[in-house]
């Protein structure tokens, strides 16, 4: 009974991503989209918290939103997987529910 969580806010501007990670359960997926994709970069002040809170949660990021913002996939935190729009649909279909953290 897994949940797909989406986060579309920059983790540097709001607490949304951290709150989402604090509520996600083992087996869930947290997908970063729109300005949320900034949370997927390594070497940021938040990277440790991301890795620490990630745990048994799968972290994913929407590739077109990364590309739009000039973030190279080589800069992502290890363990974060990238998905395209079809992959987003796939995630929505394979989880029992979707929670959008607005």
């Amino acid at each position, binding site marked *: 009974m897994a949940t797909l969580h989406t986060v579309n806010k920059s983790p540097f*501007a709001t607490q949304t991503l951290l709150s989402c990670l604090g509520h996600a359960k083992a087996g869930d997926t947290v997908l970063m989209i729109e300005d949320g994709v900034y949370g997927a970069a390594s070497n*940021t*002040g938040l990277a440790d918290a991301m890795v620490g809170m990630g745990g048994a949660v799968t972290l994913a990021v929407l*590739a077109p939103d990364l*590309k*739009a*913002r*000039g973030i190279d996939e080589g800069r992502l935190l290890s363990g974060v997987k990238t998905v395209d729009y079809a992959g987003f649909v796939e995630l929505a279909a394979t989880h029992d529910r979707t929670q959008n953290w607005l």
Partner: protein
Amino acid sequence: MEDGVKKFLYVNRKAPYGTIYALESLEVVLIGAAFDQDVSLAFLDDGVFQLVKSQDTKDIGVKNFSPTFRALGDYEVTKLFVEKESLDERGLTADDLQEIMWEDEDEDYAEKPSIRIISRTEMADVMSDQDVILSF
């Protein structure tokens, strides 16, 4: 300073595509440039993301306005202050930003960099030195 010329600072604190603020700010800067004021732009917090190079928006269906920052020199907007602490917190360095130059007509069109990376303390000084501050 010439009569009637005021110091205007546009403060940019939002990432480029998630909201409309960044684009709106840039448009106001371009329109406002017609008034021949002493204009500076500040980029801090998530605003520093606006200047990251290699942005490519064709897969998200919105206009990539980052090349427009390179036209600012033509509009005599040549001071883009970027806060170092904001870059650091986001894992960015000066090398991650696009190069933005302006041509100095008084020095035979010599190309000079518009971006100046400054500390938070210096940014506070820049802010306190203005007549008008517009926030985005």
